[in-house]
Structure formats: C-alpha cells, structure tokens
C-alpha cells in the first residue's frame, strides 16, 4: 500500500468522523463538537492533499508498477502532461474528491463566525459527498492499485495523444471546479431545509460560490468546444454529444437559478423553485458525471466503465434526489412565498419566463440525451438522436431567451408602465430593424439567422441603453462621463457586470447564428491544382512525410488566397500515433472575424494527390470573443469592490 493510499483511507475515516461530530454538536447543542467536526474537515482536506501529492509523485517518479500510472503516463511524456492526472478515470475521481475537500475546507474557513446554525448540516452534506467519492476511489477506481508482480512496465502507454493539448491541461480541472462547486450551494440549501432557516441566508452565503461554479462550468464548456474545434478535425465545436450535454444541463439549471434567486432576494418569492433548482443543478452535475463514466450512453469522449462504478453512481444520484426532494416536501409550509407577482409587466415576470425557457431547453436536452436509453428500455432497440433534433427545439427557445435578455433589463422591479416600456423599447427596436436590413443587404435571406441577428441587435441596444441611462443619471449629480461610468460600475457592480455577461452571450449567439451559413466541400487535388471555393483559391503544392518519435504521418502544404490576394500557407496533417495505435486529423485554419477557412487532410493517394475537406464557418470567431468577454464580465461580478460597502453606507 502506498502513502497516498494510506492517506486516502485515513481521509475516509475522518470524513465519517466529521459528519458524526457535526450531528452530535446539533443533538447536544455542543459547540466544541462542532469545532471538532470543522477540524475533521481540515484533516480530510490535508489527508486528501497528501493523497494527491502521492499520486503526483508517482506520476512524476515514473512509478509504472502502479496500473494507473502505466495507463496514462509514459517515461518520455512532458512533465506537465504527466501531472495531468485527470487523463484517466481513477485520477480524475481522486481530483474530484480532493476538490470537494478543498471546497469544504474553504467553506469552514469562510464561515467560522457566520451561519453557525447551518454549518453542522453543511458539513454533513459535504462529508457525505466526499465519503461517496472517497469510497469509489478507494474501492472501485483506485489510482494506487499496483500491477501484479511481473506485470510492471518500464514505461507506460502514455496519455491519449489527442488530449495532449494545452486546452486539455486546464479544461478538465476548470470543468470540475464548475461541477463540484455546486456542491456548496446544494449543501447550504440542504442545511437550510433541515434547520428550517429558509430565508435569504443560505443563498446569500453561497452567491459567490454559485457564481464561481457557474463561471467555471461555462468556461470549461467553452474550452471543450475550442479543443474540439482545433484538435478533433471535424469542423465544429459542438456536436450535442451526451458528454457535452452532460455539462450543459447543469449550466442551464444554474443559469435559471441565478436569475430566479434574484426574485427571492428582492421579493421573497419562488422559494420552493429556488431550492428545487439548486438541488436539480447539483443532481445534474453528478448525473452528468455518471453519464460520462458509466458507458450508459455512447459518446466520443466518455470513460466507459460499466459494472460497479456505474451502479454505485446511479444509486448515489437516486439517493441524492430522493433525500433532497424529501426535505423540500417536509419544509413546504416554510417555503411559501412572502409576496405575489404585482404585474406581468415587471422584471420578476420576465425572469419567470426566462426560467420557463431554460427549463424547457433543459428538458429537451435531457430527453434527447437519454432517448437511446429510453428507446432501448421500451422497444429493445437503441435509437440515437442526432444534432438536428436538438437544433430544431433549441433554436426557437434560444431566440426567446435572447428576446428576454433584451427585455429584462428595461423593465423595473415590481411594476412597469406601458408608457415607460414604449419609450425604452424604441431604440432597441430600431436597432433590430437596422440589423435585419443590413443582413438582407449582405444577402441573408433565411428567417432564423435574420431573427437571431435582429434579437442580438435588440438586446445589445437595450444593454447600451441601460449604460447610457445609468451614466446620465449619475451625470445629473455633477459627475463627468468617465467618472459616471466608473461610479456606475462600482455602485451597481452586480447589475452592470451582469450586463457584460449578457453582452458576452450575445456575441456568442452571433457566432452560433453564423453556423447557419456553414459550407462544407470535399475534393481530390493533384499537386499544383487550384480549388476555387467561395472567393478563395486553394492551391495544393506538395505533401511530405512527417516523422516523430511517437507518430508518423503526412502534411500537405496548401497556398490560400482570397480574391487574388495571398492569405497564407495552410498545413493540415494526418497522423498515426504508434503507441496508442490511433489516427489523428490535425486541421489547418485561416481565421478572420468574418469567417474561418478550415481544412483537413482526408487522405493521400499513391499518385500524391490529396483528398481535402474544407469547411467555411462564418462568424465562428465571435464565439471565442464572446468567451473572452464572458471571462471579463464574470471577473467583474466576482471581484469584491470596496465601493459596494460604500454604497450600502450611502443608502
């Protein structure tokens, strides 16, 4: 047994201890037991950290006598990729457990003097989560398991070459922070339900946790899309694959929660809905992990692992849902709304509609993702649902959400008047019409792209109008434009940083709308031959062999010019990785704000002619720009500005 494994078992022991001590503290009203439970959480974190260090040491020290190290590492692998223990199932589960422990530790640190009635139950909930994953790591998916004598390797298989990409170094941990981060608001919600303290405390205490988890999950999803676009060589960034959907579903539920919780905060309404949403979000996080790792649904990038692993996970998801639903039912009398909706023309009404749309979208994705399982259970035939199904429903709902993104900010809380609405919507409506006119002028004739562009323009105009009105209001106090803008951001940080996030989403939608004009062509080219396509001229010059210690392949040299002007040399590759016996297609992309010229080398003939596949993807760069703005917006949201305290004292 290794040191890391010892630490893991010790951590499990202290995990159970911390939960029991927390319950005793409540039962006996004994704060010293609570302090002991909190220290138990610290011990769990320290021991799991030791376990992580043990695994990293084994990876860096080339301990190929351990099955996991032999599976994902190789002697010649760069050390950064050796550290990426999330490249395999066992390591990623340990990372997951450690992250839960880290978050528990941070929660304990943050709440030393706060939320004391909630904390014992938060500890119980977090420790229950850690115990489940800890048991999985220790008994089912143990990264410290040694190979039988005589089975040890001098080197390992090495990480899947497709995963050896910079985005993959950060994508899984970022995604995990997102998925695991929701355990904190979930635990606070459970604690609030158990204690009956169902006011604003639980979600105010976890607002930053929720936002952080949502932010990281969003970034993780986007990085995954970027990696797929750059590495997988199929010309797209989102395939509605079950694993992709598994991360999108909790993100959608969390987005709905972030909006609806504002109604509870401002009006004391939707209490049942909010606790249900946070329960749903975390359950979807765990369920998504189950989908990814159980092999229940077929996916291009899942860790298929049937048997005990999947069964335990399913039981855990079931217990999670049943216990949480039971708590909600038990506390229904305390979850009654304090107020009623004053008017249908109010911001809370628009948020409510936004929640309906998110839930509809979530239900469709859930149904589509699990349809193969349902169909097999009912008819015995496994029927897979492809992207057209998702697009058919997601498109209209996305349009509706875009519309609400524009409408929401312009409506006041509680009640707005038609006169004010007419005044507010004048400019945005004009922007939308102008966008349609421009789209028509450049040749866009289809309804859906036109509608997307119009609503993007409409929503962008409302955001700009909000900034303009806010600045004008501040300027009436005698501030200059610049000062007014800064003060606006400082004193209304959540609202205006939130608008930056909305702007990011609009930019992404511009990119998504561009997908309606994607072009895809395949052609066989002889050396020297020129392929004219959509204003581009692609000249195939030569193909040469690529040799590398770990792969061999071919690279084609292609000269690209647009409207007669040279753009650059593109070098798509086809590789075969020897050790993994895995082929890979490395695309070459010429990227502009207008469109991407994306080419892959499909095949090489004996006469040295090449089969090329070209994708022309309009506006795709706006998705990545949107992602960048998303990071800025969320950073603004999460940055703790001292001025917010100033605003409170002022008010």
């Amino acid at each position, binding site marked *: *047994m*290794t*040191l890391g494994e*010892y630490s893991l078992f*010790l951590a499990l022991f202290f995990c159970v*201890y911390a939960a029991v*001590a927390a319950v005793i503290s409540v039962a006996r*009203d004994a*704060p*010293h*037991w609570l*302090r*002991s439970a909190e*220290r*138990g959480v*610290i*011990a769990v974190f*320290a*021991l799991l950290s030791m376990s992580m260090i043990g695994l990293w*040491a*084994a990876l860096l020290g080339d301990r*190929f006598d351990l099955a996991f190290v032999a599976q994902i590492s190789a002697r*010649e692998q760069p050390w950064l990729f050796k550290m990426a223990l999330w490249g395999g199932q066992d390591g990623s589960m340990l990372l997951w457990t450690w992250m839960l422990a880290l978050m528990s530790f941070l929660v304990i640190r943050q709440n030393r*003097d*706060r*939320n*004391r*009635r909630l904390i014992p139950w938060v500890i119980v909930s977090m420790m229950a989560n850690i115990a489940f994953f800890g048991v999985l790591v220790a008994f089912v998916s143990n990264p410290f398991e040694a190979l*039988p004598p*005589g*089975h*040890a*390797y*001098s*080197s390992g298989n090495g990480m899947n070459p497709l995963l050896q990409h910079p985005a993959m170094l950060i994508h899984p941990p970022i995604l995990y922070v997102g998925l695991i981060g929701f355990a904190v608001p979930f635990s606070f919600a459970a604690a609030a339900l158990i204690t009956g303290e169902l006011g*604003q405390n639980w979600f105010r205490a976890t607002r930053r946790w929720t936002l952080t988890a949502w932010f990281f999950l969003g970034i993780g999803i986007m990085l995954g899309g970027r990696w797929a676009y750059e590495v997988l060589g199929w010309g797209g960034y989102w395939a509605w694959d079950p694993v992709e959907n598994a991360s999108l579903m909790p993100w959608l539920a969390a987005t709905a929660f972030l909006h609806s919780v504002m109604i509870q*905060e*401002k009006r004391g309404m939707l209490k049942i809905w909010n606790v249900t949403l946070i329960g749903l979000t975390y359950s979807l996080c765990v369920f998504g992990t189950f989908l990814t790792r159980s092999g229940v649904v077929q996916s291009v990038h899942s860790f298929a692992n049937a048997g005990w692993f999947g069964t335990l996970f399913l039981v855990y998801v079931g217990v999670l849902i049943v216990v949480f639903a039971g708590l909600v039912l038990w506390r229904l009398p305390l979850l009654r709304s304090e107020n009623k909706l004053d008017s249908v023309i109010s911001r809370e009404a628009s948020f409510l509609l936004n929640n309906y749309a998110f839930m509809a979208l979530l239900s469709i994705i859930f149904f589509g993702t699990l349809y193969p399982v349902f169909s097999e259970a009912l008819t015995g035939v496994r029927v897979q649902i492809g992207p057209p199904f998702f697009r058919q429903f997601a498109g209209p709902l996305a349009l509706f959400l875009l519309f609400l993104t524009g409408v929401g900010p312009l409506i*006041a*809380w*509680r*009640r*707005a*008047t038609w*006169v*004010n609405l007419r005044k*507010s919507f004048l400019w945005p409506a004009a922007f939308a019409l102008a966008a349609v006119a421009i789209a028509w002028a450049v040749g866009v004739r289809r309804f859906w792209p036109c509608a997307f562009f119009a609503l993007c323009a409409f929503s962008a105009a409302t955001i700009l109008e909000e900034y303009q*009105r*806010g600045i004008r*209001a501040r300027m*009436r106090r005698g501030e200059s434009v610049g000062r007014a803008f800064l003060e606006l951001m400082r004193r*209304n940080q959540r609202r205006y940083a939130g608008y930056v996030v909305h702007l990011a989403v609009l930019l992404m939608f511009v990119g998504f709308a561009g997908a309606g004009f994607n072009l895809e062509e395949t052609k066989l080219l002889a050396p020297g031959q020129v392929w004219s396509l959509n204003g581009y001229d692609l000249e195939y010059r030569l193909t040469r062999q690529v040799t590398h*210690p*770990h792969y061999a392949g071919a690279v084609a040299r292609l000269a690209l010019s647009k409207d007669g002007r040279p753009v650059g040399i593109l070098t798509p590759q086809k590789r075969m990785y*020897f*050790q*993994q*016996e895995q082929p890979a297609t490395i695309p070459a992309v010429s990227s502009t704000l207008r469109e991407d010229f994306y080419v892959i080398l499909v095949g090489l003939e004996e006469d040295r002619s090449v089969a090329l596949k070209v994708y022309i993807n309009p506006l795709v760069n706006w998705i990545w720009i949107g992602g960048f703005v998303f990071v800025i917006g969320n950073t603004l949201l999460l940055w703790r500005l001292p001025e917010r305290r100033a605003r*409170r004292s002022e*008010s």
Partner: protein
Amino acid sequence: MSATRITALALAALLASGTLFPSSANAVEIRGKVIHPTRPGGAADIEVRLLGLTEDEEPIRADTRTDGDGNYRFEDLPAPATYLIAASYDGISFPGGTLSFPEADSPPKPPLTFHIYDRTADPSSLTAPSLRWIVEREADSYRVAQSIAVHNSRSGVVVVDEAAAPLLRMPLAPAHGEVRTAFGRLPEGVTIRDGIAELRGPFLPGEREIRLSYDLPADGDLQTVIGALQPTATNGGGAWELGAPRIERLELYLKDFGIAVDGGDLYPARPVRDGDVTYLSFLGFELEPGTRYPIRITPLPPSSGPPTWASILLISLLAGGSLYLVGRPVAAGSAERVEVSEVADVEKRALRDALADLDFDFETGKLSVQDRDRLRGELKREAVRSLARRRRAVTTESPAVRAILCKCGHRPRPGDRFCAACGKSL
C-alpha cells in the same frame, strides 16, 4: 503330412485370409499434378515423395514419378492418416501440401497440384519483409529469438551452393550460445560462421521465415545486452547496422526487465503482453541497407515508493496529528464563540438594497413618480415590520436566540441586554 505340404497349406490359408477377411483400415488415394510454369514438359518424370503418419504414429513413406504431363498418383494408402507431399527437382525439395484423412472412410480428396521452378543464383528478387528480435531475460541468461522473413518475388528458386557467397547474412549476437533449432538441425540452407547466419536458400517464390534461437550469458552487465543486440561485428556499441536487402519492417521486442530503451529512429510501439510477460516493442519501417540504428538501453532504478518504514512513520504522524487536531476541542470541552443568528441582518440588508434599486430604477426612467412613491411606501412599511420582528427576537427566547452566546463564552439569560460575565453589550 510332409513339411512341404503343411507349408503349402499354410501359405494358401494366408493368401485366402487376405480376400476373405479384408484389413480394417481403408485404402485411400492421393493424386495430383506437378507444374513447371516456365518450361513446358519440365514437370515430366519428376520424383514425388510422400511422407505420412497414421493415427498410431506409424510412419509411411512412398515414392513415385510423374508422367509426361506431370501427373502423379499414390494408391492403397492407409487411413486415417496425414500425408505430406513434396517433389524433388534439381536437388531442391518443393512442398506440395498436406492432406489429412481423419476417418477410415474419408471421402476422396481433390487433386493436389503444385509448382516446381528452376534455380537461379540471382538474389535481386529477394526482399526482407520483416526482421524480428525477441529478447527475454531468464534467471541466468538472455534468451534471444531472432527471425527473418525473406520474400522472393521471382518465379524461380533463388539458391546458391555452399561454396558460393551467401545470399543474405543475418548476424547473431556476439558471445551467443548454441543455436537451438527444431529437430536439432539448422534450417535448410543456413550455416553459421563467425557469429553470422549465412542464408543460401533455397528461397522459393513467396515468403520464408528463418528463425534462430540462442542464449546469451547474463552476467548482470547490461552492456552485454547492448552488445548482444549488435547485428554486425563492425558497428559501434548499441547500434543496428542493416545489411542488404532493405528491411521493410523491423520488430524489436524486449522483455521488460527494468530497462529504459531509446529506440532512436525506431518507433516506440504499444507494449505487448504475452501471458504474464510484457515486452517493450519498437518498430522500424523501410529500413535502408547500411543504415545504423542506435539503440540505447539503460538500467532503471527499481520502480517503488519510499521505504516502508518511512511510509509507516509518515502515516502515523499524519494519523496522530489529525486525531490530536479533531480530538482537542472535544477533550477540552470548552464552549466556543457562536455569533448571533444573521436572519434579521439579512432581512435588513435586503430591504435596504430593494430601496436603493427602486430609487435607481426611478432615476433611470423606468418608474413613474406615482409608482416610485407607492412602492417606496410599501417597502418602508415592510422595513418597520422587520424592525419590530428584530426587536422581538432579542427579547424573547426563540430557537435563534437560544444559540446566542457572548464572545466570552457565557450564555446570557433571556432578556439580558448585557453579559453577566464580562459586561459587554449583547
């Protein structure tokens, strides 16, 4: 009865028994044709040999000669049995194939047709599709299995006399032990001279694999292994130097015995498992004659973690430290500081934020004066109610108040406004 008469009667009875009581084994027939593809009539009067083995492992041998068209026939062969047919032509044996009769009443087999060829000494049609080395470490030796596949693309047999220069040379490892071969004989056309296997044929059209196994002394010095992997006597340490012809595929399998192998230009392939044994494998393709392929083998430190005593010490420290950490508050049994429930504070903060938002909505033109005043009035009334609740909370014993402790750890009585122990305001 005279002895002559008795003998005559016995002979008659013996002859009669052959017809009256036939043998229990059936007689089968093998027939076929020998073809010489490049010389018409070349297959006439060729010697065809048959080697067979019955179920009782009784050997059967028979010879015949082909007719003018190359046809041959073996009759009255016992069954069940398995037969190997070969033709002998120009001093070379041409395998015709194997026929098996598993039952006594096995149905007749179709004619067995095969080719014979003229011999040639021109090696230009020879290629080496693969060269394979499998190196394993045994208790006191390295076991090497070395094989080469030779492909002849010509419609003729490439072969030279023993006196002539060999067609191919496959150097063995220096200091190799006795070469182990099937039936104690080297494969046909193979001689070993000065540590080099000389291959003189015959190489019939198609592919022939020649496999040689031998042991090397393993004195623990890995240089011995490196030396052992030198295919020629002329190259430097740890390099393969390939002689003609071009090797289309080179496969090197090294039993994993705690070594790191740098295959140079060879491609590291997925480790191969055969039962309990793991082989590090390397592949090379289209390897040109005369090129040197350096291979570096270095010993590895044993793959293991820290010593057991260090692990036990460290884990004991961890366990002890953790137990002390969590046990201390319980052992001390001290009451610790727990702050006032924040419910009322949160309510206050929410109302304050709602008022600020209301004013801001009015300032940005989203609310009329009437709506602002009405909503502000509602919020103020809500604030008054909240303040009243807050006051009640600190003067009555509610579940929230029960949790209140002074910072000094003293539990105040209901209604106390100051701590009885330290005097601080509650």
